[in-house]
């Protein structure tokens, strides 16, 4: 029932948010409330919940709840940051639609339903891409987006057919050809959707559109959800199956993965716009999803799931960081942003935390997960590429930090930064209301000039009210506490954005360290993983449908932990995403 509630909240929230679009304030309230409700529903999701819709059973696992929680939390945090840096009006409904689609996809026991729902969940990327439809980029981005959607749909249907291959007799001498073709198309869909090299041009174009926070939907959330279902297909249909065609298909995907790992980092180093650096960073790290697909080993499933969780939150934090920096300094060019770290230390700290969460350190779960994927996904002779990818990633992150430590440019000096600003109440003469200024901490003429207008408006408003002391030569403008809080709130917008980014980064770091029970949750797969093996006909229905389709006639799935899960330690009670996991409820 908790899963149905989650889906209902997402769908209703999406519709309400779309309906409220003409009303700016209402749409924001509805969007934030919907995302908050979705997050709460995901947090309260019972890991052993199930519901039957038609002949198909929707079931949850611990990882399903955890993954949906991560997506919902990232969506909510980014929308909250958007309230400060500029509201992404289409992000919230698109995120809610994606959440609903991915929720069905990763909880379905029927592979066709799972793949079709995963394909449908990629359609909302058009909402983000449509922002550039009125620019010369619009035609190129739109056509690329539709082509990607078509590829994803075809790959999903082909994968669904080959997933149920136990009940299909292919009329072919080498049935692995069909499997290899399905793998190639599915991996291609994942690569194109995540912008892997050489399919990175649409993602790069999108980064130049000023899309901001909307990038995370197209490049992180949707590819991750689709990749999760693809990983389930890979581990169910592909592991341990020999064949020359399969080897060739794997080799092709390995080439794309290696190119993505190396050239993505090179692209991030060569570009000067923060959005482009962020996009290439996301593209580079998406290469690990392709590595997980090529692993052909059951041992790759758990680290891949852990990496996907970290990828979702850490890259969301990175996109939020880029949006906050661009908004704070009103520029996204590194040439203008020299010295940004001096003016925005909280954002600098957030970037360091994001780097730590993304790359990890030897011994940390995320580092081990990346290393395992490299070891299993690539031949022995190119294992050094994993280290090279880490070093290249460090290079562009260090470049960002080094630019931030340089002498500030005029653009950076003019900005307020994320220091704390307090409204003062200086003595104000009636004739010189301009003297009612704000002294920022640290005092700075540029920041003073930037904030004076706010207090100017406030002092004007205060002066318009009847004042018994009017006519006095020197007086202090009367600011109510509420008024002062409002002024302080508006003065400290940058610090609000910075703290939200830091919070997102901190969550990413905790997840990367295995906190919240992440390591244990990643041991359990999605529902499709557990539905694949034991059923002779995983589609859940007979070729000749029975007239009585009672809920109990659906597939009875062994939703108990898989063997790897049994071997793992019991989930800790600290897992906030699924408190009922330890109760066996």
């Amino acid at each position, binding site marked *: 029932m908790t899963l149905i509630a989650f889906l209902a909240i997402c769908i209703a929230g999406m519709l309400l948010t779309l309906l409220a679009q003409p009303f700016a304030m209402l749409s924001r309230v509805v969007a934030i409330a919907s995302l908050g409700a979705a997050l709460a529903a995901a947090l309260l999701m019972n890991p052993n919940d199930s519901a039957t819709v*038609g*002949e*198909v059973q929707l079931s949850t696992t611990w990882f399903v709840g955890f993954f949906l929680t991560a997506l919902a939390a990232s969506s909510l945090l980014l929308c909250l940051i958007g309230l400060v840096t500029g509201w992404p009006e289409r992000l919230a409904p698109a995120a809610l*639609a994606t959440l609903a689609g991915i929720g*069905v996809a990763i909880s*379905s026991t*029927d592979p*066709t*339903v799972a793949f*079709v*729902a995963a*394909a*449908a969940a990629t*359609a*909302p*990327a*058009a909402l983000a*891409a*449509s922002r550039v*439809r*009125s*620019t*010369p*980029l*619009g*035609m190129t981005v*739109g*056509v690329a*987006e*539709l*082509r990607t*959607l*078509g590829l994803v*749909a*075809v790959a999903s*249907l082909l994968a669904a*057919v080959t997933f149920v291959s136990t*009940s*299909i*007799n292919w*009329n*072919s001498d080498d049935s692995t050809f069909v499997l290899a073709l399905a793998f190639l198309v599915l991996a291609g869909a994942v690569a194109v959707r995540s912008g892997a090299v050489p399919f990175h041009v649409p993602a790069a*174009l999108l*980064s*130049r559109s*000023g899309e901001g926070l909307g990038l995370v939907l197209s490049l992180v959330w949707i590819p991750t959800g689709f990749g999760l279902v693809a990983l389930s297909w890979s581990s169910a249909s592909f592991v341990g199956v020999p064949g020359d065609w399969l080897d060739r298909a794997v080799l092709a995907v390995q080439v794309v993965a290696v190119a993505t790992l190396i050239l993505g980092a090179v692209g991030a180093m060569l570009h*000067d*716009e*923060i959005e482009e650096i962020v996009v290439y960073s996301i593209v580079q790290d998406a290469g690990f999803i392709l590595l997980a697909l090529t692993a052909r080993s059951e041992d790759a499933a758990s680290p891949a799931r852990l990496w996907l969780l970290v990828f979702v939150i850490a890259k969301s934090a990175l996109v939020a960081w880029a949006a906050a920096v661009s908004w704070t300094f009103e*520029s*996204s*060019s590194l*040439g*203008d942003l020299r010295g940004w770290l001096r003016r925005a230390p909280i954002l600098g700290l957030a970037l360091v935390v994001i780097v730590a969460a993304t790359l990890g350190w030897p011994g940390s779960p995320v580092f081990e997960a990346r290393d395992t994927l490299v070891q299993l996904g690539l031949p022995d002779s190119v294992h050094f590429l994993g280290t090279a990818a880490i070093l290249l990633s460090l290079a562009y992150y260090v470049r960002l930090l080094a630019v931030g430590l340089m002498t500030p440019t005029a*653009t950076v000096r003019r900005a307020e930064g994320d220091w704390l600003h307090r409204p003062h109440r200086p003595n104000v003469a009636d004739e010189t209301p301009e003297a009612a200024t704000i002294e920022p901490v640290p005092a700075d003429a540029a920041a003073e000039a930037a904030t004076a207008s706010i207090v100017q408006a406030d002092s004007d408003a205060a002066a318009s009210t009847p004042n018994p002391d009017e006519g006095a030569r020197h007086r202090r403008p009367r600011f109510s506490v509420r008024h002062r809080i409002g002024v302080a709130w508006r003065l400290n917008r940058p610090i609000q954005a910075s703290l939200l980014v830091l919070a997102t980064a901190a969550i990413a770091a905790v997840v990367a360290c295995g906190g919240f029970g992440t390591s244990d949750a990643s041991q359990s797969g999605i529902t499709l993983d557990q539905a694949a093996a034991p059923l002779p006909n995983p*589609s*859940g*229905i007979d*070729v000749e*449908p029975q007239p009585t389709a009672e809920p109990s006639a659906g597939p009875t799935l062994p939703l108990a932990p898989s063997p790897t899960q049994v071997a793992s330690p019991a989930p800790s009670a600290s897992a906030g995403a699924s408190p009922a996991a330890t109760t066996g409820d």
Partner: protein
Amino acid sequence: MLDAAVFAAVAVVVGGVVAVTARDGRIVVLGLMLAAVAAALVASPLPSSLAVTARILGAMLAAYLLWAAAGSGSVNSAGSAIGLVAEGSVAVAAFAVGLAIRPVDPLAGPVEAQAAGLSMIALAVVPLAGRDAFRMGVGVTLLTLGGSLLVGAWAGPTPSLEQLAMAALLVGIAGATCLLIPSAEAEEAAETNAEGTEAVEAEPPSAQPVAAANRAAVARGQAFQVIAKPASAALDDSQPVRPIEPEPRPRPMTADPIEPDDWLAWGAPAPEHVRRATTRTGRRPPVPPPTHTEKPAPKKPTRSRPNLHGKP
């Protein structure tokens, strides 16, 4: 006796051919809706009424979304480059191939579903290779319908939730298509920029003032030209945004509608009153018919075809 699946499969193919070949956006949408509705019925046995209802509602909603985009009049399909007969031949050939081959033996679903699926995929190839967003959306829809038909043929009857998910996917594709169709001004600007001498480069995010000026120019219906700048260059409000006058587009001979006073030049059949007048007098009267005034009617230019290229 022919099964209902046969008629549904034929309806799917007819709808697909209409969607691919029609030029009027609304006819394209009707063809797509016919194909999408009929595709839900190419099954043996038929899905439950709830599943069929979900698919039909999804098809209608998808068609409505596209209709809303095409109904404004600004969206028309470029039509087929190879013509109705050729597209129909391709569809029929693919249908015949689908009836003949057996990649899966035995088929779990009707063979007509496989034939119609292959036909849809064959019809989708040409639109997917183009750069027209509307036709691209049509192609993606046909491709998805073809894939779903093949799944039905190879894997057998599909559960209700899959029908619902497929309906959601079709609605998603239609929604994405109508969202991603570039506005007429953007198309014009893109074409104008493509014809220009300077290379068009997308503005970096730091070029917000330029982008804002460009958006304002687009809102005024004015074509614009983005100045190519190095990515590291800081842009400010003083950066030049050079509005340029778009040249009138040369009209193709057959695609665009004929304007009222162009019938002589383009060889279209003359209106009824003109034909009657011509028969009586033996001469072509001017259009519109001259009114009886004191002044003589102005002399018409000998070339009634508009001077499109600005040459003297």
